[in-house]
């Protein structure tokens, strides 16, 4: 009576991805909320700073990226908190497949649900903030490579704080400093683009961050989860 | 010796405020660090001692209970 027919790594990955997407799509809010949060935070600034086009255009890249950081941050909780609270996480650690596969699936689902929509709405907000016309390409590229990094790094933070009762703000303390390189290089790329200069250097660095976090984060997350659930 | 009087020493060539602010804050922080280290060391020891005391109290209670149940 040995067990038979264990799903392959790919199957397990797909099952997990499908499950997380199902849950997110069940409450459609889950997709629209980070998006709306992003939009609202961006619109808070013209309200707080005043409507001058020149100032806004100057600070637009910073604001859009900071808002993207915060929107990702707020949605991170969904990654493991709920699963921890209802015991699902425990079950995942007992799945025959290695934990990092499950983790990878969950992080990718998270990005699809929160990161991807941001990329679609960003150009609209850029118009509202009078972003320099040359910068649109850089904005899109940095968001496309940068937001997955945010999900990967963020996952480490959540995994570390998932067992702690009130991780809410502790999470930001841990994660935001790690986000800073992405922020710096992304806004620097957009600013460079505005001056019509090549920004491939910055993009290359973000790309390197992407590959590093893509390969290493799942392992760090698995280790962190094992600590948190002990 | 770079200074001819105490007042000159305190004044630091007009930069007194900044120099003494730096040295003062540095001293303060270091002292706080040392105090915190000493206090937490003591606290840990006290916590262990308290736990031990409680365990002994419980052990005695358990022994008493065992004796009571035996005698009855």
């Amino acid at each position, binding site marked *: 009576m040995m067990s038979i027919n264990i799903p392959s790594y790919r199957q397990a990955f797909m099952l997990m991805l499908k499950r997380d997407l199902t849950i997110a799509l069940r409450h459609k809010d889950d997709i629209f909320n980070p998006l709306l949060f992003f939009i609202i935070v961006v619109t808070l600034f013209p309200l707080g700073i005043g409507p001058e086009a020149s100032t806004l255009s100057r600070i637009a890249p910073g604001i859009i990226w900071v808002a993207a950081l915060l929107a990702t941050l707020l949605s991170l909780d969904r990654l493991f908190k709920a699963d921890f609270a*209802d015991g699902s996480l425990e*079950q995942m650690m007992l799945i025959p497949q290695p934990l990092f596969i499950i983790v990878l699936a969950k992080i990718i689902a998270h990005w699809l649900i929160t990161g991807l929509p941001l990329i679609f709405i960003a150009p609209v907000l850029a118009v509202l903030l009078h972003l320099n016309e040359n910068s649109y390409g850089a904005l899109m590229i940095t968001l496309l490579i940068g937001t997955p990094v945010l999900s990967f790094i963020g996952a480490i933070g959540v995994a570390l704080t998932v067992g702690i009762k009130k991780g809410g703000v502790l999470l930001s303390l841990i994660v935001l400093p790690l986000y800073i390189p992405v922020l710096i290089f992304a806004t620097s790329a957009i600013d460079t683009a505005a001056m019509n200069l090549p920004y491939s250097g910055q993009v290359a660095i973000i790309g390197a961050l992407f590959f590093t976090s893509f390969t290493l984060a799942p392992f760090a997350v698995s280790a962190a989860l094992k600590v948190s*659930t002990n | 010796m770079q200074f001819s009087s105490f007042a000159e020493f305190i004044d630091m060539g007009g930069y007194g405020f900044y120099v003494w602010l730096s040295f003062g804050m540095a001293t303060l922080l270091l002292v706080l660090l040392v105090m915190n280290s000493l206090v937490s060391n003591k606290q840990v020891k006290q916590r262990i001692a308290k736990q031990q005391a409680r365990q002994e109290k419980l052990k005695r209670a358990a022994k008493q209970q065992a004796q009571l149940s035996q005698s009855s």
Partner: protein
Amino acid sequence: MPSSNALLHADKLTCIREDRILFEALSCQFNQGDIVQIAGPNGAGKTSLLRILAGLSQPFEGEVHFQNQPLHKNVELYNQNLTYIGHLAGIKGEMTAQENLAFYLAMQGLPPHAAEQTLENVNLLGFEDALASHLSAGQHRRIALARLWQCQKPIWILDEPFTAIDKQGVKNLENLFVEHAKQGGCVILTTHQDLAIDAQLVKTIELEYQLV
């Protein structure tokens, strides 16, 4: 020395929580065909022991062996042979009863369409499409337990499986356990209720509540 047909054996386990020794140098073994009840009062360390056996927490000292290999050497193989259901059921309130079950079945390599049939076993007929968060305490737990009916894995570790389950439900579960043991499986469980299983089939490990 553990006998050769021991599926799982614990070797001199010590568990310390909050400076209290829950158990010390505890050795025991679990063979095919065993139903083992871990008994003991509240706070004795039953849950702690089960989590160590399942590989979810590390003992302070000692080791758990699966097929005479230390656990950490072949986690994947062990997990292929283990089903653990803890105090928390691992059921997502946002998914329907059927989806929840289908996910766990699929993770074992079973076809998801078996879910509907399996839900009948736990008397959840008619609730397949109800969100799990809209079910009663007992129905919620039944979803988690339902997968046992399809489970091919030999080792079952169940922490208070009868919580919130009504009498008929408890009886069905007990029958299932006996069935599983007869087919060469091994059930390790805790409960504060009396088991209505033939006493010869059940072994008991008594954990004492140690004050110090």
